[in-house]
């Protein structure tokens, strides 16, 4: 690499870090277009990093697919006053995109093709005249496999994840108490997170009293959609926001292409390589991970991913959850901000944001003591796509 290829101030081989974090209010009410919400989050993230738009030479965008027409695009750069960018892309690996954006930014910075990259995600499924569930039920169209499924009563994403949950519990010999334990432990974390949208304490009785959506999934097994946005600033230079550095030490992907046919499990399994690659790149073992922040659109996904990524032996995550290990004070703190179930559903930004908070030590009453390493797992499709990060608060 010639000196000319390296941006001023970048040090080849130096750790790349997340130096800024910005969130909008997470709203349960209609309002806010994705572009406006994204602009707010980017402004907040740059302020948090102590940087200005003139320090930014990369922008990566991603937005929820399908539910509304006014999605984010690369036009966001023009809209929010950025200019003279070296990296500008709209990434799409379904829900895994957000985590993949950070990996994309790190690779570009390491290659000397950018220095400071903003990654932003915005979503606004709550619209006047209908719940988010209603918005999802009406989306999907009449074409392809999705059209056939919708004509079979598979409206929104809950029935498919319910098929996953029913199959998972059948194969592992589990029961709905396993799902209940995830909902309860995740809520216990959310109670202490000011950014979480559901903060009332929850016990098993309250869980069992909640509305059934699609057996075995109750409303409290499902993510809470919000109108909101989150942005992070990824840079090869230290931030000026006064925060401890959070370094991206490991990255991994896995796209197992699980087949829907006899002889294999259709609904879960695969993805281990994303975690193994990220941990190996970081030089860390699963036991080194202080907090696990996992994409949890439904309670059953937390159980699947804990097993898939090697934090629990196959078929044991339900028992681990029932032991209380995932909650405050447990041995395997997981989704420590309340996850998508009780915190807010901003796809991969939900686990990523919480990992940064924990590594900065700014988690307040939910802070896990002594965390130096965080694992972030993002999924897309029906757990078809996996993107993982290992973040560390100390230099490699």
């Amino acid at each position, binding site marked *: 690499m010639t000196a000319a290829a390296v941006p001023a101030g970048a040090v080849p081989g130096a750790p790349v870090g997340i130096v800024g974090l910005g969130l909008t209010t997470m709203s349960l009410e209609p309002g806010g277009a994705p572009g406006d919400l994204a602009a707010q989050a980017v402004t907040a993230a740059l302020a948090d990093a102590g940087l200005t738009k003139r320090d930014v030479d990369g922008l990566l965008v991603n937005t929820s697919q399908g539910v509304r027409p006014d999605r984010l695009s690369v036009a966001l750069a023009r809209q929010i006053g950025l200019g003279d960018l070296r990296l500008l892309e709209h990434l799409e690996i379904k829900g895994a995109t957000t985590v993949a954006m950070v990996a994309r930014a790190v690779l570009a910075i390491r290659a000397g093709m950018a220095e400071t990259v903003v990654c932003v995600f915005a979503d606004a499924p709550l619209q006047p005249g209908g719940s988010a569930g209603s918005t999802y039920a009406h989306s999907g169209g009449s074409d392809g496999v999705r059209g056939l499924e919708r004509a079979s009563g598979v409206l929104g994403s809950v029935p498919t994840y319910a098929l996953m949950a029913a199959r998972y519990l059948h194969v592992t010999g589990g029961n709905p108490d396993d799902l209940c334990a995830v909902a309860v432990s995740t809520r216990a974390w959310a109670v202490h997170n000011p950014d979480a949208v559901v903060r009332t304490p929850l016990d098993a009785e309250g869980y069992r009293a909640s509305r059934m959506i*699609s057996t075995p999934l109750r409303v409290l097994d499902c993510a809470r959609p919000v109108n909101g946005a989150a942005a992070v600033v990824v840079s090869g230079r230290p931030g000026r926001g006064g925060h401890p550095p959070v370094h991206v030490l490991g990255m991994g992907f896995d796209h197992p292409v699980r087949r829907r046919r006899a002889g294999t499990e259709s609904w879960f399994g695969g993805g281990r390589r994303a975690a193994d690659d990220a941990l190996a790149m970081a030089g860390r073992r699963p036991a080194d991970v202080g907090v696990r922040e996992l994409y949890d659109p439904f309670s059953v996904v937390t159980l699947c991913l804990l097993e898939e990524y090697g934090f629990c032996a196959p078929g044991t995550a339900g028992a681990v959850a029932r032991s209380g290990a995932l909650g405050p004070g447990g041995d395997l703190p997981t989704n420590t901000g309340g996850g998508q179930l009780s915190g807010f559903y901003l796809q991969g930004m939900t686990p990523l944001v919480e990992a940064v908070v924990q590594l900065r030590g700014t988690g307040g009453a939910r802070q896990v003591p002594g965390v130096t390493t965080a694992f972030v797992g993002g999924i897309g499709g029906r757990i078809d796509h996996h993107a993982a990060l290992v973040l560390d608060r100390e230099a490699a």
Partner: protein
Amino acid sequence: MTTTATDLARADWLLAPGLAPNAADAVLAPLYAGAARGELVLPSCGACGLALELEQRACDRCDSADVVWAAVAPTGEVHSATTVHRRERGLVLATEPYPVVDVELASGHRLVMTTLAPRASAPAIGEAVRIGFRSVGGVAVPAAELAAAEIRPVHPSDTEVTP
């Protein structure tokens, strides 16, 4: 305009006609054409016979790009199942929760469908299934008949008059 007996027979028990799938779909048209004839038509590899997923354009076992849509045996078993309680107004006509079943067919394909008739709860995993067809907005789609509910055991005593 009056509703004819044919129209009534075609009204689906579960969904509004607006949820009719696109019968001319670029990929699934053979399935809908077969369903209209009462046949379950699905894709398999023309070279090695592997059951393919509906949107698959090449075989993942032998790499052949020869995809053959043909009628398969309309039998299988429940791979997974759920009872959907959330009923979106305007889309779901049923007034009670309804089943959605992932069926593993004898051909090796897996297909998600609802049942041919209303049913209060989801069938058990492993239960035998026979495939029939519903009509949604005039388009025939596969639906599961649960063997246990459909095939009434016949015993010699059934023909006898009970005292």
